[in-house]
């Protein structure tokens, strides 16, 4: 998109601190848990201790008798609930069977949180414990205990909404085994022949456990009905319109009877896309006639949030001695927990489409288990997939004695190459990103770094990198831009700002209209007032909403110039906006102020229309974003301890609308990626109970575990994004598990194929390594 404005450098491309900074450092930003409300009740949920059980009987009488308790509900009290819940949101309270430990079976609203908690202890539930399917590989087998009720359909909304990753025509057979809920299959060429003609065939199985998105603010919602039957939800959500639709669907309420107010979201990362506790909180408010707030505890978040799926990838590759790619065969198994809803095809796309494999056979299987159902986590399934393919590519290069960067560059896809689903790759910066890794001093000096190995006792040094990508999400959206009577601009969207996108959108509006940034104010409206928009997910806010804001600002600019043209008796093409005035080009003293145009649009008896720029784009072209990460580290082979010395993120963002914000995304994403690589994992026992439901036992990385994260921004403009921008949020969470595994292999000669790559795993693997 070519932009012609008088001052497009004034907004776009500048590192401008987020305008919400002062409120945040003063502790004055209010999250859902901070909102005051007169007459507020507090909700708590009673959750099943069993992963699979029949509910024989629930007795709530003692709980109801407790002073201060205003409502105690079970599924029997909510007529809208359906037995075959198609999604987790529909399973508001378990009806007759619980399918994961932590599933809500009863709800309480009380005057104080402590009273609500006491009431939970007084609810008597009689369970008949049933056999469980916990391990996805066992759950796939015929005869495994069934998770879903027969006839429940696969839920592909997440895939559709989140990533638009080619929910591809994959000619998969219908699921057969009882707990297999989705399948995909992509094939090309003769794989058997490819392997037969290969000189090096490698086969590995890569495993990544369920991990939690780890947002610091637990799920929270405040619900209130008024006497006319209007429901307001103050929610911590990544998409207020999506929340409205889901709640309307579950509770059978018309959408325009629900207003969702997106309150400042204390982190989401995919975990706050889907409705979770909104429906039950709304019902408690309806029953009590009072505002009700529900805030999940951290224990509940870890036990019964919506984590990322467990991923098991069996990967077999065949190559010629000179590195020619011959064949790839893979099977990705995603443990979706108790409800269907993973983004299954992402794995196939990145296993088979990053490098040019002449023959492939890639299967995907979504399996249900008696564990909490999953949701997106920042580039869902991409880090786990890249862990497999980039570990494998490194092994091939090393085994054949090829340069790791050159080997990848030789086979890397280019624009126009087909992906496994047949769709062509769009313009992307994969090559540029990889070249920057190859040219980085830490890569060029890797031999010097490793040379000291064996001289420091048990400490070994290594360097490793990996490349990863994301196709970029798409969703229709809309935005308006108004000119105010003082000549300032108001931008309105419904887009939740979870990543500093509002400042970037304001920068886009300023550049496109031709006004200084401090004259632009952007607001995220609630679902009653804002133009409709999609999720803040899929790395698509700047790409899609940025386009809407750009076009709405251009529309407002056109209207402004048309009004000025009449006043100045000049052609609109000869006008420009400078310093808050519309002037005739080359005749700076012939002009009219934006304020006067704005005023006339809001003046009694005025014949001048108000300036209201509108855009409501839909999209068909994705803009893939690639990132590579390089790790330089030390490993103590006795203890398995890893000390990360340096970490570099190189990312193609198309155009950094706000480099400061882009760096923040790259650094934060990198550390989440490193957490998945090194320390995180939800650990379940054989009965499907979480064994580490606290932040002491679920280890997120701290400031003391990390070096500074170096960021290198690459700008290869996307043909379709605003000012060439691509999605930024997701690519940086992708490469680290593979980069760390590759660096540890470089240091120790040990190849770890299971995350987290914990000290225990490293030390055991090193001890088991055959000595040369």
């Amino acid at each position, binding site marked *: 998109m070519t932009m012609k404005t008088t001052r497009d450098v004034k907004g776009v491309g500048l590192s401008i601190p987020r305008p919400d900074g002062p409120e945040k450092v003063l502790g004055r930003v209010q999250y859902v848990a901070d909102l005051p409300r007169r007459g507020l009740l507090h909700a708590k949920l009673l959750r099943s201790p069993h992963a699979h059980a029949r509910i024989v009987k629930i007795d709530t009488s003692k709980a109801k008798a407790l002073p201060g308790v205003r409502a105690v509900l079970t599924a029997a009290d909510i007529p809208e609930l359906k037995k075959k819940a198609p999604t987790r949101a529909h399973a508001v309270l378990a009806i007759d069977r619980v399918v994961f430990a932590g599933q809500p079976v009863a709800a309480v609203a009380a005057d104080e949180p402590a009273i609500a908690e006491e009431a939970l202890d007084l609810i008597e539930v009689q369970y008949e414990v049933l056999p469980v399917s916990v391990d996805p590989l066992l759950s796939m087998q015929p005869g495994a205990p069934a998770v879903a009720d027969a006839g429940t359909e696969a839920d592909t909304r997440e895939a559709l909404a989140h990533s638009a990753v080619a929910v591809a025509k994959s000619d998969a057979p219908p699921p057969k085994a009882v707990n297999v809920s989705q399948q995909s299959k992509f094939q090309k060429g003769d794989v058997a022949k490819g392997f037969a003609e290969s000189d090096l065939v490698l086969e590995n199985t890569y495993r990544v456990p369920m991990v939690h998105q780890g947002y610091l603010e637990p799920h929270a919602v405040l619900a209130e009905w008024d006497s006319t039957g209007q429901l307001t939800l103050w929610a911590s959500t990544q998409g207020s319109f999506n929340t409205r639709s889901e709640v309307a669907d579950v509770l059978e309420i018309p959408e325009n009877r629900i207003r969702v107010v997106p309150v400042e979201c204390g982190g989401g990362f995919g975990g706050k896309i889907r409705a979770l506790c909104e429906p039950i909180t709304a019902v408690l408010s309806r029953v009590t006639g009072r505002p009700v707030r529900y805030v999940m505890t951290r224990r509940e978040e870890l036990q019964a949030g919506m984590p990322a799926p467990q991923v098991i990838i069996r990967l077999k590759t065949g190559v010629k001695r000179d590195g020619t790619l011959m064949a790839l065969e893979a099977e990705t198994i995603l443990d979706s927990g108790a409800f269907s809803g993973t983004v299954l095809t992402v794995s196939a796309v990145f296993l088979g489409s990053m490098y040019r494999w002449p023959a492939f056979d890639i299967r995907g299987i979504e399996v249900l288990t008696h564990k909490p159902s999953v949701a997106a986590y920042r580039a869902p399934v991409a880090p786990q997939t890249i862990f497999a393919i980039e570990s494998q590519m490194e092994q091939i290069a090393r085994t054949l004695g090829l340069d790791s960067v050159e080997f990848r560059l030789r086979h890397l896809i280019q624009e126009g190459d087909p992906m496994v689903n047949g769709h062509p790759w769009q313009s992307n910066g994969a090559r540029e990103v990889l070249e920057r890794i190859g040219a980085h001093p830490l890569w060029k000096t890797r031999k010097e770094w490793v040379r000291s190995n064996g001289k420091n006792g048990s400490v070994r040094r290594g360097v490793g990198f990996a490349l990863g990508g994301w196709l970029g999400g798409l969703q229709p959206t809309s935005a308006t831009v108004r000119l105010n009577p003082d000549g300032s601009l108001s931008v309105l969207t419904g887009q939740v700002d979870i990543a500093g996108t509002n400042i970037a959108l304001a920068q886009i509006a300023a550049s496109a209209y031709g006004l200084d940034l401090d004259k632009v104010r952007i607001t995220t409206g609630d679902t009653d007032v804002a133009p409709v928009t999609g999720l803040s997910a899929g790395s698509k806010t700047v790409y899609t909403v940025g386009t809407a804001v750009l076009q709405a600002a251009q529309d407002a600019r056109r209207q402004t110039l048309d009004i000025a043209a009449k006043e100045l008796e000049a052609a609109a093409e000869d006008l420009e906006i400078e310093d808050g005035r519309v002037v005739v080009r080359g005749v700076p003293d012939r002009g009219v102020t934006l304020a006067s145009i704005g005023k006339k649009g809001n003046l009694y008896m005025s014949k001048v229309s108000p300036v209201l720029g509108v855009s409501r784009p839909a999209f068909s072209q994705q803009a893939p974003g690639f990132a590579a990460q390089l790790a330089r580290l030390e490993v103590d082979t006795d203890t398995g301890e890893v000390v990360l010395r340096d970490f570099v993120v190189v990312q193609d963002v198309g155009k950094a609308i706000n480099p400061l914000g882009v760096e*923040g995304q790259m650094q934060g994403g990198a550390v989440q990626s490193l957490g998945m690589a090194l320390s995180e994992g939800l650990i379940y026992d054989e009965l499907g109970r979480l064994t580490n439901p606290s932040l002491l036992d679920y280890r997120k990385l701290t400031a003391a*575990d990390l070096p500074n994260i170096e960021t290198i921004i690459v700008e290869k403009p996307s043909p379709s994004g605003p000012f060439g921008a691509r999605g930024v949020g997701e690519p940086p969470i992708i490469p680290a598990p593979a980069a760390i595994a590759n660096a540890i292999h470089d240091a120790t000669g040990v190849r770890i194929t299971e995350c987290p790559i914990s000290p225990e795993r490293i030390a055991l693997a090193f001890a088991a390594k055959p000595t040369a």
Partner: protein
Amino acid sequence: MPKSVLSCTVNDEAVEVLVRPYDTLLDSLREDLGLTGPKEGCGTGDCGACTVHLDGKPVASCLMLAMQARGRKVLTIEGLGRWDLLHPLQEAFVRLGVAQCGFCIPGVLMAAAAVLAENPHPTEEEIRYGIAGNLCRCTGYTKMLTAITEVAAATDAGGSRR
């Protein structure tokens, strides 16, 4: 359960509030005094979002009973700086765009302020360990380190701002 009077100093003002025996200091600050800057991220002292100063030392206010603050001095994020006079750490956090979702930021700032109060010129490692009890999921900590390091560098040996 009967309530008792808690008398203490919060952000340089003497306060008296009625608290239940089981109320945590965090509960009392948030619910009775309306100071919602300290956040509850875990309730078990693992995330640091509720960090306040008690007699100048950083504590997890979710792990203390409110009555344990009797007669003592509590400082919350609301008392660290004012909107028209930010604390140097707050100013640096704004300028460098540290805060993203912002939920951890009040706790991080209180932990960082405690680090600098104890030692105006900490090493990088001392800063990292000083805020290691504060989890952040958005930033990767790098910009926090830059901000705290800049503030320390701008402080002279006697502890006052240059």
